[in-house]
């Protein structure tokens, strides 16, 4: 006959302080585990959502990012004649020749500086990025020293707010609008007219040519033709894949960091659970003897203590995940090693992370509870009854 579950739960409840301390140890482990996985996922999600599946990005061969890339006007013009590009409402192909440079700007409220990507856009750029919405002000007029700033840049960098000016390339650029591109990398960029920016930086080359496919399934054919064209030295990639690649190094770093830290910490927390459970068994020796004398089997005793350990783990896991879920309100801003530019992203909680956090805490409880539960189950009835509550 099994012992009721409430027996296990009430045992935890009786020793509140010990239960609280052990569970909070586990909660912190689960919190660290979940928070770092959420960070890696947030980074990846931000960059994945930046790209659109139908868009194609062409950059110079072997240059892995737009910052390193350079495409001269002649090559850009050849790509422009690409028949696979979709046609927009105005009858022109949905295609943009863009330039991207990094500009070092001071952060708001501190003298620390960081790299902000400045993107020179063409007439087709906005139509290619439906996720970009102007939230304040207006679009920059072509041929003027006007730019619009992504909302993360406007918040974080000095001089990037609406109506303020940024100084780079020997000119002062007025911010005439703020745009919001949701949780994408575009929210961490500044956009202006590509011809004006190319003049200012004296850099008469584009960084990338981006166009939307008329038929998304034709990507392989387009890629083959462009990469095989002897007049072009370009790498062609779907926009989604292009941005996903930029997150790989950092996401991997975060995951390795998170998992190795968690393994070390979980050892500590498991030992904590083990100490608690051993004490729990030791103080109840007489009680266990009584239960056995009443006819409960060894299996039932084992199960009761295992459940107690599992509940302890569960309590820690739930508390840890609750704590971690609050992290979703935070935005973190750091340099992406791969693009060398500042990127803002949020912690993202997925059901997968929640499930692994909870199962992880159950595992810790189980690992801590097995040995003590075995000790409880293996006690002889007479010895247990004879022992005066010592240990």
């Amino acid at each position, binding site marked *: 006959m099994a012992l009721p579950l409430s027996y296990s739960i009430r045992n935890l409840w009786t020793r509140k*302080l*010990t239960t609280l*301390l*052990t569970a*909070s*140890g586990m909660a*912190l*482990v689960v*919190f*660290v585990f979940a928070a*770092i996985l959420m*960070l890696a996922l947030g980074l990846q999600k931000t960059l994945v959502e930046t790209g659109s599946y139908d868009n194609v990005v062409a950059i*110079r*061969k*072997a*240059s*892995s990012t737009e*910052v*390193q890339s350079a495409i001269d006007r002649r090559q850009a013009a050849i790509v422009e004649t690409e028949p696979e590009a979709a046609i927009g409402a105005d009858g022109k192909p949905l295609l943009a020749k863009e330039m991207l*440079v*990094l*500009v*070092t700007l001071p952060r708001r409220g501190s003298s*620390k*500086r*960081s*790299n902000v990507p400045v993107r020179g856009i063409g007439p087709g750029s906005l139509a290619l990025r439906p996720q970009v919405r102007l939230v304040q002000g207006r679009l920059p007029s072509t041929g003027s020293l006007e730019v619009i700033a992504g909302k993360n840049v406007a918040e974080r960098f000095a001089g990037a707010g609406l109506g303020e000016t940024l100084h*780079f*390339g*020997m000119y002062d650029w007025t911010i005439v609008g703020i745009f919001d591109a949701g949780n994408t990398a575009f929210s961490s960029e500044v956009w202006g007219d590509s011809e004006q920016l190319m003049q200012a*930086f*004296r850099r008469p080359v584009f960084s990338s040519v981006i166009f939307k496919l008329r038929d998304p399934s034709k990507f392989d054919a387009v890629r083959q033709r462009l990469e095989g064209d002897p007049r072009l*030295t370009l790498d062609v990639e779907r926009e989604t894949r292009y941005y996903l690649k930029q997150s790989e190094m950092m996401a991997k*770093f975060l995951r390795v*960091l998170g998992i190795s*830290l968690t393994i*070390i*910490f979980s*050892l*500590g*927390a498991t*030992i*904590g659970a*083990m*100490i*608690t459970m*051993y*004490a729990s068994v030791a*103080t109840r020796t007489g009680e266990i003897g009584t239960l056995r004398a009443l006819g409960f089997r060894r299996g039932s005793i084992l199960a009761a203590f295992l459940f107690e350990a599992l509940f302890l783990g569960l309590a820690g896991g739930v508390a840890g995940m609750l704590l971690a879920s609050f992290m979703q309100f935070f935005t*973190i*801003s*750091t*340099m992406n*090693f791969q693009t*060398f530019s*500042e990127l803002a992203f949020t912690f993202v909680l997925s059901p997968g992370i929640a499930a692994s956090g909870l199962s992880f805490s159950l595992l810790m409880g189980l690992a801590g509870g097995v040995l003590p539960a075995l000790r409880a189950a293996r006690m002889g009835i007479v010895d247990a009854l004879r022992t005066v*509550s010592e*240990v």
Partner: protein
Amino acid sequence: MFLLKLVLKNAFRHKLRAWLTILSVTIAILAFGLLRTVIDAWYVGAEESSPNRLITRNAVSMTFSLPLAYREKIARTPGVTQVCPASWFGGVYVDEKNFFPNFAVEPRSYFALYPEYVFSPEQQETFFRDRKGFAAGRKLTERFGWKIGDTVTLKGTIFPGNWEFVLRAVYHGRDENVDERIFFFHWDYLNESLKQSAPSRADQVGAYVVGIDRPEIAADVALAVDNTFKNSLAETLTETEKAFALSFVSMTEAIVTVIRLVSLAVIVIIAAVAANTMSMTARERIGEFAVLKTLGFGGRRIAALILGESLVVALSGGLFGILFTFPAAAVFRSLLGNYFPVFQLSVRTLCLDGAAAFIVGAAAAIIPIWRTTSIKIAEALRRIG
């Protein structure tokens, strides 16, 4: 003396529990020490910088270059001893995963400015004379098994094409904090090739390393250099090497902050485990403490007993933790050497380890001390279990 004996006996009264607690403190101190060392590794570039070196780069950002003509102009600034052009090459060896830093530098002036890279004189001279030659750190050559005379091809990501180099010299660091996995080659080789393939990009320099007489004049020289090029097509930003290195660290500050927070979290986790052990011990022995009180032990004595026990357990854990940190750091270094070229335990980290163990021990004793000293003797004696 008697008190100490009592403390030691009591601390190991439950052998299993005591050792488990010591083990968990050991793990925590180990993790804490390793995390501190990771943070140190982050700042190693800034720590190793010389106050006699300034870096002049394009004020817009690192991705913009400066004209070669600036070299002479900077050299004319009073207080400047050497000016060396240096460009980040960003070449990839076989696969992107094999990342290592590679720079095009003017070798004679560069290695005069950086005495921490130590060469044998013959190798250095052959490297200086061979324009297609390159010099690499000891760890880098060991990683890929390069021998003197080997040809190595890098694929350029910033400068397109396949670039061939011949290994002419291997350097080692003057001390353990010097990065031994850097690849240096002749800036002239890069520039002459660009004159052929991309004339518009030739005679451009990524940054200048500027050597100065004495550190005190650093700020004045930096200002003088920047003023020379004010309102020109390529304005400059000159700062000390340390400020330059710190500007990189500050860009990844968020990650450093996360690691710092996590290393605090590990201390809190273990303090919770240790506090739990101590509070269990105190609760089980509440009757015993009441007997001691009856015998005339004062509250302070009893507090000292509990604190002593807690400290014995925490400090022995701390000691083991510190001892294990050395082999663990060695393993870490061999596994992640490519990410952290320098991974060196500092005395400061070891002191912090000790302090952390002490804090855990002291914090764990607070609740039990409060409970035992505040309870009335009769009530404590009456209590069972």
